[in-house]
């Protein structure tokens, strides 16, 4: 039995995720869309906090909400005038999109609900300390993540260079 506070917290977060994701893909103003994305990302960060992964939540806010969305907003401002509205969707296109989305929702939802294993309780877990994260992230032992970490770092480097090369003015 959870505390009422956490239930309320959950409800707010879940509602925010659902509402803002829907709004993010349905609004016709692109800047709003980015804003709704920001809210969704915040809500996601909330889930991470509820899961006791404070570090992850912080990263989510810092990198996603702080970095990516700002990038997106900048590029929106660079590529469109304020007040630009996307034209209305053709009904055929929307129907196809809705079909795909709802079919996905239906099938996956059915699959979820038919598995009672997913009704597991939140188990107890100690705090995840930074020590632990650091050791494991850069460790080579059991569950050590050094190799992916390095791979990601190379990837990031490549992306940085790629980004510069692509966006550079000729």
């Amino acid at each position, binding site marked *: 039995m959870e505390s009422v506070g956490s239930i309320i917290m959950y409800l707010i977060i879940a509602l925010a995720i659902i509402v803002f994701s829907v709004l993010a893909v349905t609004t016709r103003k692109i800047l709003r869309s980015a804003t709704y994305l920001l809210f969704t990302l915040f809500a996601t960060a909330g889930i991470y906090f509820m899961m006791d992964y404070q570090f992850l939540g912080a990263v989510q806010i810092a990198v996603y909400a702080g970095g990516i969305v700002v990038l997106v907003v900048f590029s929106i401002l660079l590529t469109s005038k304020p007040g630009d509205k996307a034209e209305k969707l053709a009904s055929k296109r929307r129907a*196809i999109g809705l079909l*795909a989305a709802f*079919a*996905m929702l239906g*099938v996956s939802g*059915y*699959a979820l609900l038919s598995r009672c294993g997913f009704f597991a309780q939140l188990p107890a877990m100690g705090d995840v300390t930074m020590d632990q994260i650091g050791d494991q992230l850069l460790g080579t032992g059991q569950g050590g993540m050094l190799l992916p970490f390095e791979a990601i770092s190379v990837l990031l480097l490549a992306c940085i260079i790629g980004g510069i090369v692509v966006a550079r003015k000729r």
Partner: protein
Amino acid sequence: MDQITPLLILALPLCMFLFLGLAGNKMSHKMAGILGTLGMGVTLILAYSTAFTYFFSGNPDFIDAAGNRLQSVIFDFTWLEFTENLVIKLGFLLDPISAMMLVVITTISFMVHLYSLGYMHGEKGFQRYYAFLSLFSFSMLGLVVATNIFQMYIFWELVGASSYLLIGFYYTKPSAVSASKKAFIVTRFADLGFLIGILILSFFTETFNFIDMTSAPENVLASTGGATFMGASVLTWALVLIFMGGMGKSAMMPLHIWLPDAMEGPTPVSALIHAATMVVAGVYLVARMFPVYLMEEAALTIVTVVGALTALYAAIVACTQVDIKRVLAFSTISQIAFMMVALGVARPEIHEGVGYMASMFHLFTHAMFKALLFLGAGALIHAVHSNDYTAMGGLRKYMPITHITFLIGCLAIAGIPPFAGFFSKDEILVAAFENNMLWGLWMTAVAGLTAFYMFRLYYRIFWWNTPDYEKHGHVPHDAPWTMTLPLIILATVSIVAGFIPFGELVTWNREAYHIHLNWTVATTSVLVAVVAILIATVMYRKENAISDKIANSVKGLWTAAYNRFYFDELYIFITHKIIFNLVSRPIAWFDRHIIDGTMDMFATMAHKASGAIKGLQSGSIQTYVLVYLLGALLLGVVTVVCVML
């Protein structure tokens, strides 16, 4: 006998051809002409000595104790070996007919070489002309001395090609080009028959060799094992097909159409190739294979019938032609048909095969007097610059030598004794009468026609009325000695050749045979000839309208004969309308549109198919995602359903 002389007989003209052909352009006309003539002269001497040795030396290789002449193979090189038995050899077979042919060919060829020095003087391509003449002489000599049927076929083709080249000598003239093409293709068609005949014959006999075939013709017959094809025995088929080759070369109906057109070539060429030598190759072929032909009565009958029809046809047509060379051409066809008939009616039981001897005799005499006539015609054309007798007339005063020699030629061909033609033609008629009265009468009639049309020609050229030659700027006169000398020599030969005891030299079984005139036949034929000449004299000696009246009274026949009974039109219809328009063009169309169209259709189908599925690879990621997702979901649903069931 040594091998060098026969080898040289073949090698000299060949070398001369190669030499003149390759180096001719570098030398002067005179040089080339004299070289060619000299070469031929040497060949002539060698051939004469060879023939003389064969007939008169009494060498045991050539004549046995009983006085029978023998066939002797001087040399025989293997040229191409198909199987153990089927080997093409290039050899030199010496027997009465080949020795006789050596004499005929080299004589006429030398005369023509000599004559051409004057006739072709100053022509462009003089060296080429002599090169081709040498090539022809080589091929023709190779043909007559062939030891096997395939060697004969090889040289047969070569004479065809050299004839093609010589007919088309004036290659800028479209008529000459088409005439040469026609000659080659018609004879090629006939050669197809020859080739198939050889294939059939060699399949059964397993040999190409003449001696093997002719010395034991029963074996040839036996080897076919009585096989038949479409109702006729295989041997008949083979022989008739081989005869078809002969029909082509010897211009027998219906394959004669090329010969009149072949007169587009220079006149000496007509004398050499299209009167004296190449055109008798067909006769020579049948004579060569004669013992085998004797095995099949049907084949000989076909030879007779074709010969007889051709003789009459050509004689009728010759009566109406205007071009003097064409008259002579049709006369040649008719005379060769005489030889064919003689072979066709020859049987061993009739006077020991007199027909065969007569045929060869006539071949010999005809070669001489027809070459004489052609060379005479050449001299006339040279003087008048026209082929039509309408441009001539009264020439006896202007060209006495030509006149006399031409007259001798006409008398010879008409069969007036004591000229050569009388003796040989008489033997043919005897053979025909002995075989069947009908053939005898038929051929006598043709002989009468011959006398008529020859004298018609003679009178139109040398008598009739005299056109005003001065008005045209040049008065005709006799040709230089290089041209008249051959005329005189040939005329002399035409006078005396009849007295050669031919039966002693050439018979079908190579036993000596004493010619004795059959007085009834001789008298009849001479009478007929004289009457025909008289009619011609009445009609054509002086300008008058009798001939036109007669022509008008039988207008249909006259026109038909004048147009050679529309054979050319028939052939043009067959080749152009049927072969080209109904076979070749549809095939070409079929190939481009159906066969190629099918291939293109595959390509188009592939193109269309890829165009149709190209839309799936639109490059739009959104569509990809949609399809991917729906596909994944479908799979999911299917899985779920399966799990539930």
